[in-house]
């Protein structure tokens, strides 16, 4: 790949921003984000992630983006999973083991129902006032 120029970087930023904007409650892409810091991984996030992808394949659900992120800050509730789905509120689930991971797919993604007793609150408004 050739070296990026200032223009290239700006174009890429705009393009990626637009892509990110498409993943939201108002849009078509469902996004499942698993917290995969050392804290999450130690609490079993890898098993959670593979259970989620496995269940999505099994149910053949389309247009779901499963991705990883770093620590969400909710150490007491690891592993944590954030779900953004069209037409539904964005929520963070805490203490998501493999079986709850599968339930997220069957109930939240396929059944459009929020899970009982697993929702945690976001620790803070997203960014900078």
């Amino acid at each position, binding site marked *: *790949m050739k070296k990026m*120029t200032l223009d290239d970087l700006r174009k890429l930023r705009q393009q990626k921003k637009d892509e*990110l904007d498409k993943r939201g409650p108002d849009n078509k892409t469902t996004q499942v984000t698993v917290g995969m810091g*050392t804290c999450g991984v130690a609490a079993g996030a890898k098993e959670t992630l593979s259970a989620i992808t496995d269940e999505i394949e099994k149910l053949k659900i389309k247009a779901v983006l499963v991705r990883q992120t770093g620590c969400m800050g909710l*150490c*007491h509730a690891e592993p944590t999973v954030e779900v953004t789905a069209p037409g539904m509120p964005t929520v963070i689930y805490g203490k998501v083991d493999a079986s709850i991971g599968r339930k997220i797919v069957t109930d939240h993604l396929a059944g459009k129902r929020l899970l009982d007793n697993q929702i945690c*609150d976001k620790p803070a408004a997203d960014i900078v006032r």
Partner: protein
Amino acid sequence: MAYKHYILVCGGTSCDSNQGAKLSESLKKEIESAGLANDTQLVRTGCFGFCEKGPIVKILPEGTFYVQVKPEDAKAIVAEHIVKGNKVTRLLYDNKQSKLHVNINDIDFYQKQFRIVLRNCGVIDPDSIDEYIARDGYAALEKALFEMTPETIIKEIDKSGLRGRGGAGFPTGKKWQFSRGVQADQKYIICNADEGDPGAYMDRSTLEGDPHSVMEAMMIAGRAVGASKGIIYIRAEYPLAIKRLETAIGQSRKYGLLGTKILGSDFNFDIEMRFGAGAFVCGEETALIASIEGNRGMPTPRPPFPAVKGLWGKPTVINNVETLANVPMIILKGGDWFSRIGTATSKGTKVFALTGKIKNSGLIEVPMGTTLREIIFDIGGGIRDGKKFKAAQTGGPSGGVIPPEFLDTPIDYETLSKIGSIMGSGGLIVMDEDDCIVDVVKFYLDFTVDESCGKCAPCRIGGRTLHNTLVRITDGKGETADIDQLKTISQAMQRASLCGLGQTAPNPIISTLRYFMDEYKEHIDSKKCRAGKCKNLLCYTINPEKCVGCTACARVCPAAAITGERKKAHVIDPAKCIKCGQCHDVCKFSAVLRS
């Protein structure tokens, strides 16, 4: 088919005991009788953390937040809010100020945190440079390269009031300025990721969650001081952080964001990693440099300071991970913006790893000046199992303890040092009544004795002697003179040790002698440990009046110290007892006494 409304009811213990379960029932009935079961989902959630105003009900997607909701309010919520779309004003949170709080984000309780350093942590995929770029990543580098000069960059950092987050709090702008002022053919930027305080994991999480922000900051620092090489000194025990950094460095090189003529400018910069073998002292600047140069990790006297004469004898800026992670935001939003956050002398935010006997342990970021009470009781949800708060420890082995009377002190560099602790790197360990202060201090001294490099006598011998004294006290062999000895040696170490490790190692002792002298005295004079932590001071006996002779204790005792016939009172042989406490835990009749 998705629901139109979601009614979230807090299912935390506190709300539940406050008729939360009954409230859910009533809401369910109301939803059904209104014929809305296909439109509205009732969800039980984990604790919202706002227990004092429970039970809490939150309505999504609009985010309306109702407090102190009673079962009889269910009808109003469904009939007014869900059916007609009118907010039930009397249930909104009212903090007796100007307006009612409708949305969860309006409530100050949820506004305690403020994320600058952790802005991307838990949001972006750390393995994707594109996601970082989409969140204004490398926009600060753009600005630094094309709109600013090295002088204006330093000026902006200086104006922001940013101070080193590794613990000492030295102004970052000044550090950069020193290095900038030295003529040299080569300069270095080092990122200090040798995080070592027990219970601290802020830097690890930052690097794992947002590696590019730290790299971008190193480039900006390089541009400011005239350095073309960056080194991240990270402990080898952080494999995931190392892996993510490797990926990130590879991506940046591929994009040409690292290398020569970056983005078409005349700026060259590259980053490599050096792994520390886990020696705590290598977090000290001069020992860190020695370690990179392939020598034993031992500190050398300063001056000369690394900013003037550092790695390979060249000017070297060493900044901590968290300090660096602030830099791109300061460049983008300006030093003035940053200096408006925090207190008079301490600007910006601080990340804390909140651990110990706390309900919601976590990685938090709060503006400087937030009180300990807000951190522990609001964000952290208070002490676990309803126990009493005893003290908080900040600054790890170099810090001190903060007793309950300072819960409302705004936290910044100055106030913490005034009350005998330090900001440190951000470990915040909460202790409850079950923790023995002397035992905790012994733990920290054990750590610093282990980690002392042994070069200077005050630290090598002083630390060992302090530790031995603490062992004696917790073993029940302490004497009154020990207190004076602890004080004298501590003061000598503070004055005469070569580096920060030895100078600060006695801090836990000095601060606890100040606030918890009575506990030291109890251990020494009455041979008593009120928390029941110091085994050698404990004595287990069985109350014959309560003992029913169930034999549970005798069966669990690993030392065969308990004898007695079935259905008759048992006896513990103190000579055989190893004070493990298992009999105490297993007895269902509270017949085993610990004193």
